[in-house]
């Protein structure tokens, strides 16, 4: 970035992922994960000048969930914002705050605790507008199946068919998830502690009506990639070493990988398939972004892209490009 816009690094991450948390409240999970992230970078909350959080009210059973999350996320006494459209957007907004020079070190916390709900599918159902879509029982799995039906003619995954053509093995495993990250401006941390540099982000939301989109086209993803290509700061996917893709099904992961035009050396979802990595729809992209950061931090990749989707059949997409070096150019 130019002199007036600092380079941004991820200097801490912590994750809690489990199928079902019964002994801790959601607030306690958020507190523990946030503390772990800060401690991992030898920071306390006093080193943070802004907090950006993201959760979904209906999944967690809290109305205006920023309220209960304010304490455990370290937001009390601080500038705190909730970007509720997707956990991925918390990362994006936190990044923009540092770019803008508005904050030096931002804590980003995204979560989803589906075990709070007796029927998490029902929480997803109320994402459907009440006039037509709710009657057909739309939820993320059904929407993912609609998308997959355009990508392949027959089931290919492991296990029984859940929603044709998707099998159990094609679908993300859902569980209670909290991610906490610290984004920091170059100069605000000891050089060398960075886990990865965040070079650029692109994001876009497409049409709500499933019938108005070509679900196989991934237009919001293309728009996100185009934004970054126009800026020319981050390497394009053709130069990535790794891609972590939080799509709604394995067929979609494959289709996205094809669309990206990755080099043959690139590894897709090295952190695990959708069935292996516990996450939940609200944070499924953030989970993959954290995995991409991990690939960089481990030295397994020099440039890694994290991709997330939100809404039915990927109505929205978010891409974040991480690198071992700041200001790497394509």
């Amino acid at each position, binding site marked *: 970035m130019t002199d007036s816009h600092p380079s941004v690094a991820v200097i801490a991450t912590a994750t809690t992922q489990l199928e079902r948390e019964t002994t801790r409240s959601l607030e306690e999970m958020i507190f523990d994960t946030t503390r772990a992230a800060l401690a991992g970078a030898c920071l306390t909350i006093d080193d943070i000048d802004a907090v950006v959080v993201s959760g979904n009210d209906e999944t967690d059973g809290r109305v205006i969930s920023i309220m209960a999350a*304010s304490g455990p996320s370290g937001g009390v006494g601080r500038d705190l914002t909730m970007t509720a459209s997707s956990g991925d957007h918390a990362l994006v907004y936190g990044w923009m705050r540092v770019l803008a020079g508005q904050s030096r070190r931002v804590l980003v916390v995204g979560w989803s605790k589906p075990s709070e709900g007796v029927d998490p599918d029902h929480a997803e159902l109320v994402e459907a507008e009440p006039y037509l879509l709710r009657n057909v029982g739309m939820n993320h799995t059904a929407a993912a199946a609609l998308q997959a039906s355009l990508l392949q003619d027959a089931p290919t995954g492991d296990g029984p068919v859940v929603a044709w053509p998707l099998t159990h093995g094609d679908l993300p495993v859902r569980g209670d998830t909290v991610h906490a990250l610290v984004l920091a401006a170059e100069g605000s941390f000891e050089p060398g502690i960075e886990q990865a540099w965040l070079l650029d982000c692109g994001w876009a939301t497409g049409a709500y009506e499933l019938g108005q989109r070509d679900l196989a086209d991934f237009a919001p993803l293309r728009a996100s990639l185009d934004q970054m290509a126009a800026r020319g700061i981050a390497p394009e996917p053709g130069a990535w070493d790794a891609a972590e893709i939080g799509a709604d099904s394995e067929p979609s992961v494959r289709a996205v990988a094809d669309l990206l035009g990755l080099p043959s050396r690139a590894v897709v979802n090295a952190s695990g398939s959708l069935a292996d990595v516990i996450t939940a729809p609200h944070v499924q992209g953030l989970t993959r972004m954290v995995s991409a950061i991990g690939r960089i931090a481990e030295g397994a990749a020099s440039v890694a892209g994290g991709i997330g989707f939100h809404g039915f059949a990927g109505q929205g997409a978010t891409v974040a490009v991480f690198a071992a070096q700041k200001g790497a150019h394509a």
Partner: protein
Amino acid sequence: MNHVGIAGFGQTKAVTTRSDVTFPELVREGVDLALAAANMTMDQVDAVVYPLAPDALIGVNNGERWVVDAIGATGKPFMRVNNGGATGMSAVLTAWTHIASGLFDVVLVAGADRVSESGSAQSVLNKMWDVGYERTVPLNTITMLAMSAQRYMQLYDSDEVDMALVSEKNRYHASLNPYAHLQSSITVAEVLASRTLAWPIKLGDACPSSTGAAGVVMVSERYAKEHGVEVAWVRGLGQNSETLFMGDRVGPKHVGDHADADALAVAFERAYRQAGIVDPFAQIDVAEVYAPFSSVELHVVEAAGFAPKGGAPQALREGKFRLGATEGPVVNPSGGTQCTNPIAVTGTIRVGEAANQVLGRAGAIQVDGARVAVASAIGGDHQFYSTMVLSTDLEEI
């Protein structure tokens, strides 16, 4: 320093219900009005920040995804902010960051709400509080503010007449504002005689449940200069939060009394410092401050530095803060949140009204010569605070 300006503000006339439009259509109205005010089209908008507080009030989870097409934002960078009641303004602050980051030149913040149509708003809002401790008692926005008002009266030897003075002022202002929901003036006696909701809050002290849409278009300094766009400049902004637990706001070890708005004062201070404001009472011409009930405006005015703690009632009795006042800022010339409250965009309306004032576009409620304005919003159980200072030019304030 990449300055950011507000190029235009649009709002619908707020009412109780709008049975003539669907929710997405209502949102569209707000978008169109904002773009028209800025003399721009959706093609020129680079990104959208959408304000939406509880989904439960419109009945669709992640309702922002439902309206993206109505907004005309399909395919654009789009994100939603939910800071409770402060949302409309937190979204504006988020949009400011979009532009100040250097990534975007034109960002739209527009949305709508239809609070009365949920039918069980207060029951829904009861679920804001702690799961284990605070759901079995009927905490809601009315009881939480009633307790704050009661405590203010107790600490500062104030009474319901002081609250009624705020109502009388705001309803007078709103009677001049063609967009306000409540447009009839009210006397102090009428306020005192009105039905009690939760003591000491009476109907005459409380905001309506409004249906309305609003939006602002924000542009970068570079864009404004290249295209000759007249803007209200953002000179400072601030956000702060306090504890969820209202019980922590009393007792000898509290840091912010529930009677006061100390955390809001910190947010104001952050904005003032950036803007170079050291004497708010003297330097600010107009304040559009979020106060859904009359009692709230008392401590907000104090948090803004316009009166000492407990001093707002006396200032009101002296005729301050009213359109036509000879010294100090005019507070809520639009009638404020007390007269118009479509929750998701109420904070946006504060910014828009303040912008209109410094742009000289406020019509019947214009404060003569307004050059510096401050806007503020409150969310959660008096928990989240956003503030913004605007001015006509970029000269020293």
